[in-house]
């Protein structure tokens, strides 16, 4: 069936270092950073067995992971494409053309906000203020902020990601060593 759910050695070493940042017995504090690593390792989203695995590492009940994963908007509880295109939709970005950017991407990729392209490459998701309002409109893909976007630069960005074909996650695996 599915491949075994287990962190690589490097990622597990990072997990253990993260746990040590918190006082003895308070390892549950590491849950959010570890869930970011889980998304990085397991296709960008948190399936139930993945959340159960994290619960076992932290020696807490699965429900304690489910309730955190369902609260925070960066955690994906359904599969996502290789590149999750997160377009800011709050105030200043909206004033400066974010709505046009969203419509443009919907038309270009033929998907609606929240949907994934049939080839599994892109998922479009509108998000709230990314703290980059001075260079609005803003898009986040993985850890990268794409700023001062226009429909043209959006096209270039999408083509670039498509040609590389790599999965982008918020916690970029280049930081794990």
């Amino acid at each position, binding site marked *: 069936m599915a491949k075994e759910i287990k962190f690589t050695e490097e990622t597990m070493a990072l997990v253990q270092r993260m746990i040590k*940042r918190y*006082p003895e017995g*308070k390892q*549950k*504090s*590491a*849950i*959010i*950073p570890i*869930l*970011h690593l889980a998304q990085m390792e397991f296709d960008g989203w948190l399936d139930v067995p993945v959340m159960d695995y994290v619960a076992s590492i*932290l020696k807490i009940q699965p429900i*304690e992971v489910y*309730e*955190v994963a369902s*609260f*925070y*908007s*960066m*955690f994906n509880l359904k599969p996502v494409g290789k590149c999750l295109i997160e377009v800011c*939709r*709050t*105030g*200043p970005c*909206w*004033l*400066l053309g974010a*709505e046009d950017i*969203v419509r443009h991407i919907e038309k270009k990729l033929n998907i*609606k*906000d*929240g949907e994934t392209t049939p080839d599994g490459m892109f998922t479009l998701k*509108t*998000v*709230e*203020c*990314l*703290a*980059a*309002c*001075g*260079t*609005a409109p803003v898009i*986040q893909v993985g*850890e*990268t*902020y794409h700023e001062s976007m226009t429909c043209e630069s959006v096209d270039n960005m999408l083509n670039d990601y498509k040609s590389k074909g790599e999965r982008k996650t*918020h*916690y*970029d695996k280049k*930081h794990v060593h």
Partner: protein
Amino acid sequence: MGKQLLLEHINVPGIETLGVYRANGGYKALEKALKMKPEEIVNEVKASGLRGRGGAGFPTGLKWSFIAKPEGVPRHLVCNADESEPGTFKDRFLMQKNPHILIEGMILSSFALGANVSYIYIRGELLYVYHILEKAIQDAYDAGLLGKNIMGSGYDLELYVHCGAGAYICGEETALLESLEGKRGNPRIKPPFPAVSGVWGRPTVVNNVETIAATVPIINMGGAEYAKIGVGKSTGTKLISACGHINKPGVYEIELGLPCEEFLNSDQYCGGIKNGKKFKAVVAGGSSVPILPGALFLTTAKGEPRLMSYESLGDGGFATGTMLGSGGFIVLDETASIVKNLWNFTRFYHHESCGQCSPCREGTGWMEKILHRILEGHGKLSDVDLLWDIQSKIEGKTICPLGEAAAWPVASAIRHFRTEFEEYVKNPMSIKDVKHYYNVRNEKAPVA
């Protein structure tokens, strides 16, 4: 341009590295602080008149003096780097470009508070800045500026970065502590205050990035000197992140008391409204503060020129004033729709509500739907009074200030721009942007 205490070296190549930071005076404040007694540092911060730069403006020295000191119980300083208030991007700018000013501030502030383990809680979307901070922290450890016996002073400090995962509410200090404990970001009832019972029940102080960074120039120049900058109870400098329909959006460090007209129109700052359009309104301190029509922003109701300070922006209360807030300065020109902008902010608060309190959880949803039907051309004149009624029943009736943050924009938009709401109701087809999308997620719009 006024004194640049935080941004003085921001454009020096390599300032994000320890070597260049130290070559430009970095870690001198820490060296000085470690030779002082913790109470002396607290007194300098009190003397400086520094107020919380995250938005609430609470006197920092006073907040520090509240920390409980039970014997044998560890204390913690937690930096609030969860910057999520729409319009605000100053902390990200500072941390990304000059991480060491925050780290130096964290070390000397932790020393002042008697904390030996401190955390920087940064929002999850800013993971790339998390890594910048981690690198800078590692460099500080390698140079003996963190860890055991810092600079030979006998003081130990472990400093860690912690990340969130997308929740505006975690910028509220008690929700932040819940999140730091690994839970859902539900704010706590106060009292008890974090200074008595914070993270893991231990005495904790939570301060904004800019507040902690400001302790560096305060120790360098002394609190009294810092207090000479500014006006009244608004001492020192403030980072303002300006955005919206202006010529020069960006982060500016201003001396508090700068005239508002100068901040908006001078080429040293925002450079005036883009494309020669007229100035319609401004949300001067992050989406939560009351919106003000252009004329009232530039001049108080009494007819005096308004200044960028806590007192002056608050002149007239909410009837004719606003707040300095976080410094997220959003400018709207004549092409902007106040009603549409309000719907956008209300949608934001509804989405970000943690859900604990019925007035907020339900009320923000109702306001969003009513504003949506007004925008779609199905509104009634009574809807405006209904919106006023709903926001008045949220304000003051919730565990945390997100309730107020959702209520104040609605109240101020109606107070100052009622005729625009009525225009949408009376002449729906004449409004250019009637073709309007609900919640962008293509969810079915509710029955009007």
